[in-house]
């Protein structure tokens, strides 16, 4: 099938196209530079055309989601929508049903979403859920930061073994890249504790976050994975944690990037908002965004996504189990906790972020400060750490905040947020506004680049035919007006067209076609003998401590159909 998207205003930061009137041509599942006369013309005159969105960090599939749905039936009744001729019934707000997750991302014009935390033991479950989520490609990140074998090898400083283990475990879990959550802290939770800062050793293992982060980063660059190490640093959500965040970013500064990868960073720091807090307690809690943003501005080896608080009632779910316990003690609502054997832990609680609450409001402001203080939009990605700071369906609202200083000031003046915003953050001094090109950068181009996915996030010839068209005419529309914020939100939430692999999935904000999602995974080649060596080495411990047999631990190929295999030439 061939299409021409005619006369749209194209924003494609990867190819330096900033709001030019241009036709986009599609043949089958790729962008091309010419099509036959048979091509179907889609008139999108003067409308915004971008590559389909790419999400670098979202929790959409896996045991945490299932636990959330079981544990929060009251969330499931929000967002109930009847089936249509095309779609299944939907339910849920912060933890939508699997089909609803796909539909809602698709309606926002997204085509690729990274599932941010997959314990290998639960990888099968994650891939099963991805099979139930339609319309988006999903790249799962496998958890390594508290894995017993990694802790052991990091303690020994044995980078070769870490690399072989990671290479093998990405194959086993069919993961796309490496995720690290509260390194050593989630393991310490097995002893009922946590670690503070990157130099506080985990009990028994006597290894620190610094050693784990460095070891995994070195292994990542040794293998040359498409994505860098993706880290949720220690001390999430604790006042005064900004120094830990800077230390975490700085501890890999000297590690050389693999020369063949297309990304620029060696470390991606996720949901930075939760890690940029000043003060010493909730009483004197203030913004630590400035030093963190300043560090990122001076250090191109780091990228981040924000985890913007959206001021909703939502659900938090993370492998950072000790943090969830702290949060549970703070809120007094309900709490679920899980131990993932040799790999990690997880926790889950409902959270109400309210504009009336000083802490929530300041978290909201810190997220926006980071968006506005990090100068280079290629180092920032728009996320809500969905559903932790808010559900992903709020991305369009965040876009409206980023594009309008007037709207932000209106929220502060109308007391939609607490006065701590102006008292304890610098948000009111920041009048920077994102333009549509910046928005395209932080929602598509930058995340694709950061993930090392050259086949998406842009509209150059040869790219995947993943395109979004939004019902805004940028040439006669001023997104900086507060009154237009709701129009921006509506347009980015209801794409005029979402095209995925050359197929029209959304038209006029409605799902018109449902296709299976692809599982994106990294296959390291040329490391097989090393992998076998490490398997032989660890199998005695595996057999002794895991509750499953190795044969049942592997994610077999039928769990990942259809899939896209990213071949990694190890050590190239």
């Amino acid at each position, binding site marked *: 099938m061939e299409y021409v998207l005619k006369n749209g205003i194209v924003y494609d930061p990867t190819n330096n196209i900033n709001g030019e009137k241009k036709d986009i041509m599609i043949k089958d599942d790729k962008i091309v530079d010419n099509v036959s006369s048979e091509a179907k013309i889609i008139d999108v005159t003067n409308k915004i055309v971008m590559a389909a969105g790419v999400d670098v960090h979202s929790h959409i599939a896996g045991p945490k989601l299932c636990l959330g749905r079981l*544990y*929060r*039936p*009251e969330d499931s009744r929000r967002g109930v929508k009847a*089936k249509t001729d095309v779609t299944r019934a939907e339910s849920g707000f912060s933890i939508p049903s699997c089909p609803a997750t796909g539909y809602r991302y698709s309606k926002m014009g997204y085509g690729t979403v990274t599932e941010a935390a997959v314990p290998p033991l639960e990888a099968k479950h994650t891939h099963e859920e991805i099979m139930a989520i339609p319309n988006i490609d999903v790249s799962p990140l496998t958890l390594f930061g508290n894995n017993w074998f990694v802790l052991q090898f990091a303690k020994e400083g044995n980078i070769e073994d870490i690399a072989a283990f990671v290479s093998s475990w990405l194959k086993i879990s069919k993961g796309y890249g490496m995720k690290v959550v509260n390194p050593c802290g989630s393991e310490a939770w097995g002893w009922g504790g946590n670690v503070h800062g990157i130099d506080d050793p985990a009990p028994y293992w006597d290894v620190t976050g610094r050693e784990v982060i460095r070891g995994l980063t070195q292994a990542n660059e040794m293998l040359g994975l498409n994505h860098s190490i993706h880290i949720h640093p220690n001390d999430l959500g604790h006042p005064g944690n900004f120094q830990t965040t800077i230390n975490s970013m700085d501890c890999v500064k000297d590690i050389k990037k693999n020369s063949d990868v297309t990304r620029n960073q060696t470390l991606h720091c996720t949901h930075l908002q939760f890690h940029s807090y000043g003060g010493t307690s909730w009483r004197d809690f203030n913004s630590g965004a400035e030093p963190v943003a300043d560090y990122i501005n001076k250090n191109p080896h780091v990228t981040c996504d924000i985890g913007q608080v959206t001021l909703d009632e939502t659900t938090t779910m993370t492998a950072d189990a000790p943090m969830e316990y702290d949060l549970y003690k703070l809120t007094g*609502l*309900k709490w679920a906790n899980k131990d993932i054997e040799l790999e990690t832990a997880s926790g889950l609680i409902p959270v109400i972020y309210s504009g009336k609450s000083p802490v929530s409001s300041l978290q909201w402001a810190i997220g926006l400060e980071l968006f506005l203080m990090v100068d280079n939009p290629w180092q920032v990605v728009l996320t809500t750490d969905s559903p932790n700071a808010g559900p992903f369906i709020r991305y369009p609202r965040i876009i409206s905040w980023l594009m309008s200083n007037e709207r932000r000031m209106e929220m502060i003046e109308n007391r939609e947020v607490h006065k701590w915003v102006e008292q304890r953050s610098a948000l009111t001094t920041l009048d920077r506004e994102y333009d549509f090109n910046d928005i395209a950068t932080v929602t598509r181009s930058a995340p694709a680049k950061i993930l090392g996915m050259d086949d998406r996030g842009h509209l150059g010839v040869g790219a995947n035919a993943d395109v979004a068209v939004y019902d805004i005419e940028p040439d006669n529309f001023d997104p900086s007006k507060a009154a237009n914020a709701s129009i921006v939100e509506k347009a980015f939430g209801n794409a005029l067209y979402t095209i995925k692999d050359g197929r029209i999935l959304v038209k006029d904000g409605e799902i018109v076609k449902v296709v299976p999602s692809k599982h994106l995974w990294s296959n390291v080649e040329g490391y097989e003998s090393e992998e076998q060596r490490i398997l032989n080495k660890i199998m005695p411990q595996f057999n002794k401590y895991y509750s499953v047999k190795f044969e049942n631990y592997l994610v077999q190929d039928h769990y990942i159909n259809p899939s896209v295999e990213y071949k990694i030439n190890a050590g190239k």
Partner: protein
Amino acid sequence: MKTITLTPKKFSSIALEFEELTPDDVYNWNKEDFEKYQVPIGNSRFPLTNYFDIEVEGSAEGPQDVKMILDGDMGRVKYIGLGMTDGEIIVNGDADLHVGAEMEGGSITVNGNAESYAGREMKGGILTIMGNTKEYCGTSYIGEWRGMTGGIINVHGNAGKQVADCMSGGEIYIDGNCDILAGIHMTKGYIEIAGDVTRWPAGQMKNGTVVIKGKLNNLLEGFEPEGIISNPEINGKQFQGKYIKYKGDIGVNGKGNLWLNADKNRSLL
């Protein structure tokens, strides 16, 4: 005044859902509107007229002028009066799950038994059940920690388990007996049980008042006796006889009041 009468003519073993048929929704409907209406049943919709003979008399300016008579067995009709703000609904038979749930005003009378979740998350109005009701009367939604906040529920028969879970306002009166955990997680409000109670009333109560006029088989350990009071005044009402007053649940540092009829609970004296 508008009187809407629905008389059942065909039984559906899959429940019908009446959440779109409250006085707020139908006060300006005429007979033709009802005849056009398709009622949700399971995952589909079917004409309401398949199941009911419908009569509409008079006119209404708003829901306050509406009297709906559901004239027969509604034992497979869920969500009767869901979220209604005004008007009157009379059920001349049994009612299925969630009758009067999220109700904000007006009144519902069930001249039969009600299934579980009667008056769930009620905010206002009056729900009267002439027969028995099952579990979770006047509670929160499953998983939800914010429950009933206002209104009055009168149960003339017996009530099942977990009456008023997470209640934070309103009043519940049960003339008959009550099963386990009445008033669990309660933070405010008033529950009066005229009959006997099996076990564990007011578990993890933070505040509010539960009065039991009958015999209680099993009291939770988290309640500390504060004394015996003759003819106490509770919630603005004089009670005859001696009552044992408890404070609890101390397990959650609660300041709630639990009153037990002393004569019926001599073993606790």
